[in-house]
């Protein structure tokens, strides 16, 4: 199935004075996609979203919405809607009036407006609150109304600017599921901005990792996590151990490297062209411990232990450096390894990734 292109960003650069916020960024977002812009603060993700919404104009480059160039259109002429981080509900209007605001500006007649407002309130389970004002709502309820208000005008693309960051943990988890459900139900393309990797991995069809004003990688959540394009992505998404490695040979997508542990392994590589120095990325949960140790074996001493409930983080000193190892606290009471204990570790070749330094 080929899907239409909802948003195309082409060679977009944005400068604020001397500061380069975005540098020659290009990507395509498909119709009906849950697309996430992920990155640390200051990476340009919000600027990018604001350019799609029309609150900023690119210094260079083009943005198109379903094939129409929109980079210089004012926000009120773009058929996209935004869920703001602060929700930005109009405090002097009731919830109904908030939701109807966009529809009135689009010139919908009264009957159609009322039907749509009722439908939206129903959709976010807020019907009994129609006549209240935003100040009388909890954070989660405001969030729902902000969603209803933005979805009411049937936007071609919905933009969400860190909409969950103001909610507490439990509510955040529930809203993730609700957002995902809403996206499936409405079939509208969602562009979601966040700095929270868990949110991104959980909700997205595809993730665009931004860093230092540039795209670091675009891919599905598992591609981003399992096959990071570079050190930045491996470091930003999840936890990992970086180890020095010496490239012996590169063969297409794989490379043979000599590890800091002394032995050689062959595994997938990104960004390498030939022999030289490289970085080995090894996720904590890919390293087996004691009874789970398999593949390349080594020994170390537990130097720290953090019990996290579902799993335990160990810090293990090895001759080649410090390794972080994560072990699930499984079905029965899991074996625990005390600080100072010598442990056997092991990892398989293909669970490590070789990246350019």
């Amino acid at each position: 199935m080929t899907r239409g292109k909802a948003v195309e960003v082409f060679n977009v650069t944005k400068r604020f004075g001397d500061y380069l916020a975005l540098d020659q960024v290009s990507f395509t977002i498909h119709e009906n996609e849950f697309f996430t812009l992920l990155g640390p603060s200051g990476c340009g993700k919000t600027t990018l979203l604001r350019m799609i919404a029309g609150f900023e104009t690119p210094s260079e480059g083009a943005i198109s919405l379903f094939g129409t160039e929109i980079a210089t259109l004012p926000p009120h002429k773009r058929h996209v809607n935004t869920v703001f981080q602060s929700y930005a509900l109009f405090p002097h209007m009731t919830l109904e009036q908030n939701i109807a605001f966009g529809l009135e500006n689009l010139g919908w007649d009264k009957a159609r407006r009322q039907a749509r407002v009722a439908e939206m309130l129903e959709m976010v389970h807020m019907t009994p609150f129609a006549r209240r004002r935003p100040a009388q709502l909890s954070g989660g309820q405001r969030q729902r109304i902000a969603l209803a208000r933005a979805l009411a005008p049937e936007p071609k693309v919905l933009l969400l600017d860190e909409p969950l960051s103001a909610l507490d943990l439990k509510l955040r988890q529930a809203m993730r599921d609700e957002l995902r459900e809403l996206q499936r139900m409405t079939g509208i393309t969602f562009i979601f901005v966040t700095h929270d990797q868990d949110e991104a991995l959980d909700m997205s069809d595809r993730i665009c990792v931004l860093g230092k004003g540039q795209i670091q990688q675009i891919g599905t959540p598992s591609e981003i996590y399992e096959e990071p394009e570079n050190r930045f992505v491996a470091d930003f998404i999840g936890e990992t151990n970086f180890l020095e490695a010496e490239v012996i040979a590169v063969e297409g997508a794989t490379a043979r490297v000599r590890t800091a542990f002394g032995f050689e392994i062959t595994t997938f590589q990104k960004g390498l062209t030939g022999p030289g120095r490289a970085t080995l990325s090894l996720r904590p949960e890919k390293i087996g411990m004691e009874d789970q140790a398999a593949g390349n074996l080594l020994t170390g001493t537990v130097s720290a232990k953090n019990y996290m409930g579902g799993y335990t983080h160990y810090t293990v000193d090895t001759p080649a450096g410090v390794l972080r190892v994560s072990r699930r606290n499984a079905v029965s009471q899991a074996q625990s390894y005390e600080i100072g204990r010598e442990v056997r570790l092991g990892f398989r070749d293909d669970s490590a990734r070789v990246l350019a330094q």
Partner: protein
Amino acid sequence: MRGFRFWGLVPAWGLMVATLMVPLVIVALVSVAERGAYGGFAWAFTLEPYKEILFSEDWDGNLVFDPKYLAIIGRTLALAAATTAICMALALPVAYVIATRTPRMKAALIYLVTLPFWVSMIVRVYAWLIILGNDGVVGRAWAALGGEGTLLFTSGAMLVGMVYSYIPLMVLPVFAAIEKLDPALLEAGADLYASRWTTARRVILPLTWPGLAAGAILVFVPALGTVLEPMLLGGGKQMMMGTLIQSQFGGARNWPFGAAVALVLMAMVVLVLIANARRAMRKEARA
């Protein structure tokens, strides 16, 4: 601490009594006194000064209704209201532009708004006398465009002077109200297909209403009692309550009548303030 709470307020109370209550009582007493033979007043209780506002004696000594002072009160109210309305209309865009600048620019522009206060009001109103005069910039432009007569000594001239004098008092509270607005609300307006004009009307205006109300009080109240503009720009031809009071204590030497008009003016101000307080309270109750 209890002692301090009481004694600490004594200077404030003393100041209020000495500079506000005592003079007010004196004015109230004068307003029910008789006119002195050579100006001033003579102690004797009479309501004549208040009657004088509405009635005058005809040739036969009968009291007949005379609207000449009512006309002055009406003109005063109309000019003060017009000044307030024009100040509102001008201050909104000015305050909006200032509130949306960078912090440095904002400070500079607010400084400029308050700059006229550094120069004596008399000097500033005199400046308008020159600008509007037949040899002034505006006066000449008026003549060149085929305008007839002089611009000075008209209600229009007074209005220009009053708007100029009081507009900073409107800009400042409106600026404060706009600055408090979450900029995301304006973006939300645009995002939901509202043009700039619709956003201004449906989002900015209702949310800056408290600032406009505060500005309206700050402009309307002093505009009611204004003396300089009617005297200089109105040329004394267009009497207003302020100039009427002044003339009664001055040239006309009718202190009781002047005091009576002063109290009527004060009653009007108090009514406006009460109306505003009630409106604010109703709003408070709703929220």
